[in-house]
């Protein structure tokens, strides 16, 4: 197996073999993170540009560290899209940065397809670090890595994703990723936050957390954005919490030893109570650590070898 892609834009078009190849590569990088000298020379002389057009702490730092662990140079650029005015083209901005001879763009952008447009128009590698509600492939890969670390396999694993599915790029990437590897995915949320025809992606839809969670191996909670309550997606946070947040009792319906995951940042006390975030089922911090290994693997596979 070899990895011949120029870009990583999404999970949807990856084959199971490619996914396993990335996960295996990540495994060898994962060990480096536990060493006292956490650095290898693999990408020395390469330059990676982090372009974040949406606020993000975790993903940006994770990519930055991943690149630095591989000895690449990193430049970071953050900007809120409220500054995007008529006539300002992303492609234009990015071409200017490319002219400074960078080797890879990591792009987070509120518009679905933004990284795809860059990838099509530029000769250098593009990594999608989240494009609107479309995809967030490295998040799905680190989720897979974390599940594999604990469970060893994906076949027939029952996974439930609970929350705002409609606006979640994490949900979409995870649904593709888990289904490709043989896991069974359930999704759960208020009907207003379940997008139409999502069953065609191979998931089962639930409106009741209790029913959705029964007998699952993995519970994945999504962040609920407080602004949604003003757009008539749900009446109030109080009601949302009552119907869709996780608690000990609801988690107790899952398989014993079920894993609790969250892509972060957690709204503590809204979708998850503090006790569960820090509880023994939670692998939330493992996800964060594994994220660096997975992103090192992706950077290495796209940049580290002659294509």
């Amino acid at each position, binding site marked *: 197996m070899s990895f011949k892609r120029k870009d990583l834009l999404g999970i*949807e078009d990856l084959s199971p073999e490619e996914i396993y190849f990335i996960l295996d590569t990540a495994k060898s990088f994962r060990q480096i993170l536990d060493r006292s000298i956490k650095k290898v020379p693999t990408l020395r002389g390469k330059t990676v540009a982090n372009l974040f057009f949406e606020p993000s702490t975790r993903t940006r730092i994770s990519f930055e560290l991943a690149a630095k662990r591989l000895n690449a140079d990193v430049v970071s650029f953050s900007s809120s899209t409220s500054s*995007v005015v*008529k*006539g*300002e*083209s*992303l*492609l*234009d901005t990015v071409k200017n940065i490319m002219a400074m001879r960078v080797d890879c763009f990591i792009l987070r*952008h*509120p*518009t*679905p*397809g*933004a990284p*795809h*447009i860059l990838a099509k128009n530029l000769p250098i590698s593009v990594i999608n670090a989240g*494009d*609107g*509600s*479309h*995809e967030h492939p490295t998040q799905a890969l680190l989720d897979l890595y974390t599940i594999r670390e604990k469970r060893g396999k994906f076949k027939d694993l029952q996974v439930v994703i609970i929350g705002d599915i409609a*606006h979640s*790029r994490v949900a*979409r990437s995870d649904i593709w990723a888990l289904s490709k590897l043989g896991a069974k995915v359930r999704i759960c949320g208020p009907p207003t936050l379940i*997008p*139409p*025809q*999502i069953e*065609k*992606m191979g998931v089962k839809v639930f409106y009741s957390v209790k029913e959705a969670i029964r007998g699952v191996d993995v519970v994945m909670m999504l962040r609920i954005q407080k602004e949604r309550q003003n757009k008539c997606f749900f009446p109030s946070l109080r009601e949302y919490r009552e119907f869709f947040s996780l608690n000990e009792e609801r988690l107790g319906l899952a398989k014993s030893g079920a894993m609790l995951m969250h892509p972060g940042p957690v709204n503590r006390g809204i979708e998850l109570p503090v006790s569960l975030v820090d509880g023994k089922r939670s692998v939330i911090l493992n996800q964060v650590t594994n994220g660096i290994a997975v992103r090192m693997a992706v950077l290495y596979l796209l940049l580290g070898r002659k294509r």
Partner: protein
Amino acid sequence: MSLLVKGGRLVDPASGTDEIMDIFIEGEKILKIGKNINLPAKKIIDATGSVVIPGLIDMHTHLRDPGREDEETIRSGTLAAARGGFTTICCMPNTSPVIDDPSLVHYILRRAEKEGVIEVLPIASITKNEEGKVLSEMGRLRRAGAVSFSDDGKWVSDAHLMRRALEYVKMLDLPLISHCEDDDLSKDGVINEGFFSTVLGLPGIPREAEEIAVFRDICLTRLARSSLHIAHISTVNSLNLVREAKKRGIKVTCEVTPHHFTLSEELVRSFDTNTKVNPPLRDKDDVRAMQEGLKDGSIEVIATDHAPHSPEEKELGYTLAPFGIIGLETALGLVIKELIKPGILTLSKAIAKLTVNPARILNLDRGRIREEGLANLAIFNLNEEWKVKKEDFLSLSKNSPFVGWTLPGKVKWTIFKGKVVYQC
């Protein structure tokens, strides 16, 4: 100046003509139609092997003059239209400023007279500034030269106001043209709502946003005993509502764009913003329904909804880029490729939807070939193929999803009022 068009296959849907005929033109008018005309002419066009039709009429064009002359001017829009075989285009009023005052109708007519190569007929707005609050002075606008009224780009969402507009326009003997979209429902949507909007994470526009508006406007047309033309229809159910209305004797007509009878939603997977259009590209069943509606006559008109946009704006990404596709230069080719060649429409039926049908709806003395009539003609080769290239567009804007396509039906000459205004 006299002009003789010789040996072409004359197809005039209005009279049912379809045979080899010569046309002798003197000045602006057709003097004689017949076989083997031997009158002396200053110029002779050998149309042997070509089809000669009435100059096409587009009842739904966006020119960006006034306001966005970087995207389209009356000059460039009419040049593009002539290349597509059109000799009359009706321009929508959503310019900047909106065409809601007689002085602006005069402006367009004067400008078209001066720099246009074909005829431009302005459609004025139903409401002042297309704000949906106060009626435009439809009577004065009509007298100034407006050929119909529409708040295109927006729906008149106030039902009472729309009722009154439909009533008022009866005294002018014209239909209103409605852009049917309940924008409370389409909201911030950018593509058809369904599996693709779910997978791509792009906000969806449900079909119902169109259908609700179509149904309300049909109801109001019945109430007002008026007549209505529905712009760019795109869904199975909208079409069924129109069919049902016609059965009940309500005076409603509709149009479909070439992209809505050709393309379906999976194209948006490319994230190419040239597939971003309103109404959005729907699914394959809808596309098939549009073809059936054309075939059974429920859809009388094919209109381009030619909507030029600058590359800077189309490059803003799928959610921010403006809606719209240019269509004047590809319409005839798509009609031939998608409707005539597969046998959905005969040549004559298809051409009717681009000539005499829109002319009848707008009460225009256009869209037919007859002696003493204006010499507005398009001459094209049914089978000669051409490649759609960005750099060949005469429109100032290039936002077409058909770039790279090969289309049949190359326009060879376009004649407007006896003058050759396009020749390939």
